[in-house]
């Protein structure tokens, strides 16, 4: 196999690098469009429900008196509310330490027949380490939520 002329070689290398980077960029853009999980408030989910299998995050307040434990001892059902809408959530697993009624929560999962099936729950860890989505959420809905959870 013959070697390429020096000038052409540099050009070829630059083109390969560019093609790869643009390819990576396009691939990333395409994958992000289909795989990024969006953040919903209960009122968003009620107004515009996401497609059934799409992974999303739901953030809101755990409604007072709504936590119900299933007989299996590991599944909980509760209602996440933001003052405007209420969404039932079902989660199987060990709940975070600060998962309590009247406190904020972010659930990761998907919507199935009107119930949000959570794969993971993020609760406030302590005063210093609040999940970012929750910090924003409590700021934005502070008033409504306080009225709701009093």
């Amino acid at each position: 196999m013959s070697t390429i002329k020096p000038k052409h070689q540099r050009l070829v290398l630059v083109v390969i690098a560019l093609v790869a980077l643009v390819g990576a960029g396009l691939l990333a853009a395409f994958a992000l469009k289909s795989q990024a999980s969006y953040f919903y408030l209960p009122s968003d989910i009620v107004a515009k429900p996401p497609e059934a299998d799409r992974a999303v995050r739901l953030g809101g307040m755990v409604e007072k008196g709504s936590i119900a434990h299933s007989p299996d001892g590991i599944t909980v059902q509760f209602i996440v509310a933001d003052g405007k809408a209420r969404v039932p959530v079902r989660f199987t697993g060990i709940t975070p330490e600060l998962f309590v009624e009247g406190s904020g929560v972010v659930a990761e999962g998907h919507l199935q027949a009107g119930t949000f099936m959570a794969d993971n729950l993020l609760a406030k860890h302590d005063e210093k380490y609040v999940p970012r989505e929750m910090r924003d959420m409590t700021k934005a809905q502070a008033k409504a939520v306080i009225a709701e959870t009093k």
Partner: protein
Amino acid sequence: MIAEIGLAMLWMAAALALLQLFAGALALRPGGTALIPVVRPLAMMQGLLVAAAFASLITLFLTTDLSVKLVAENSHSLKPFIFKLAGTWGNHEGSMLMWVTIMGLGGGFVALVERRLREDTLIATLAGQAFVSLGFYAFLLLASNPFARLPEPAPEGQGLNPLLQDVGLAFHPPTLYVGYVGLSIAFSFAIGALVTRDVGPAFARAMRPWVLGAWIFLTLGITAGSYWAYYTLGWGGWWFWDPVENASLMPWLAATALLHSASVLAARNALRAWTVMLGVVAFSMSMIGTFLVRSGILTSVHAFAVDPTRGSFILSLLAIYIGGALALFALRASTVTEGARFAPVSREAALVFNNVMLCGILGIVLVGTLYPLLTEAFGQKVSVGPPYFNPVAAIFVLPMIVVMFVGPLLRWREDKAARVTAPVAIPAVVAAFVLFVLVLAEPQMKLLPTLGLGAAAGLAVASVIPLFGRNLRRTPLPTYGMVVAHFGIAVALAGIASDSAFSTEKLAAVNVGDSQQVGPWTIALTGIEPIAGQNWTALQANLSASYAGGAPVALQPQARSFSSPPGQRTESALKTRWNGQLYTVLGEEAEDGRWQLRLWWKPFVPLIWLGGALVALGGALSLLGRVIRDVTRLRAESKIAWRRERQGR
């Protein structure tokens, strides 16, 4: 007193860095040669001073001096010794001081031992290192002073975040930082070589050990961090594609590409501009990572307390250093002459492919990490996780591994594909055989883990083939290093694929006395008891686990409560066998008095970290080989010089 001495030494170190920058810059001008002998000692002095400042902060933490704000906010007199020590860097200010300490010591170490690099390039490199350090000195002294006093000494410290109270804190941050910040040396080398137009094989050979050193520590730091997250977070996962993890992975990807392109430049004088560019990119990724983690735009245990002024400060530093380096590159790129040519089938071409793939992964990780920040600026909150990263990264990783079968066997410059067909056929057959067996035996297995196991088996065989037909005693250490590192990648990949394909999980509420099955294990809950540690209390589950009916072993997962600051943490209990790991977590008490247990059987999962350690070991062998070679060469040279001198007399 110690705090004031520490602060004074920090200021003096910053002043020396300024001096080092100016002395270096003036020394490079015509007529400035008188200043050349000053630069090396300046760099060493600066390193010693900043290390002394760091030592004073450690002393303050060890003695729990509560009149110092940082100690009062992050330590506690009752904390165990190891966390008092490691607590020094378990906070923002302390970790930034560790950052500049490593930067200063790194520069000083270069000044002390680097003999290969052309003298003017070395001066420019040290000036560059001082320039980068200065920004971080300014950041420390102006925006994050670790030595600030309180008006009144606090009665007691506020303690350390419970999540950080783990031996991992003693190992993970220092190793990761040595790697992370060590890449600043590669950055300064690149700047130095651009300034003096010295991009060539000698430059690459001088830079390579420094990149290797940083890369080894970065590999160890990431591996240690992954294992720490795995056992401490209680989710059974070892990598979460969390932005903070990505922030450490991106410099690693760039440094890995840099290592390989530097070897092309060293051996064949090709990929000149590209290598310099990677030197700039690698440390830029470290800085971007620091910005992401410390600016408060992300929330994580790594972010510490958030202060918006710090974010804009780091962002300005980023703009100055990355922008400046790229501008210098743009100005000088045209003077970096064309490298030597090579054929499409050659060692160089394989390494180019590896570089392009590594940069592709870097690109998609960067995009995936920044995308949520971008959309949030437009009011749309998203999170990007494994469903994005896993398949997209695999698109680049798998072809790269296939090329790793071939690359090390190819000759430099030009080779015939026919010459390597036979040796490549062996790993290809192994990979195909494993794929075939998996598809037959486990038809439900997902695509990526199946491909991963096949590729891992092939690579494990392919990685040792370069040793065949060689005199093993005469094979240079760097070749062994490559073999071990590539083998380590195969081992880690096997662990990753096996964990994702074969892990079984069991979540159950269990009465004391009852047992559960997970995989081949039978696990009985024999009791729950309260226990107390030095600064925590816990509920402990006593588990008795037996593997396939064998003798029972005891596991004791805990749910710990810390008092200062208040916080909870699950303490998982693990049992490692040769073929995998049992992972147990204690949850809450259910309403009817049963206890929640979360159990995983993870076949071959320890291979992930064993692989990471092997990759680092490979790097270490390679570095050792190069250092030995350099020392021997320098000794021989000085002997010749000494003989000449004697004969001259």
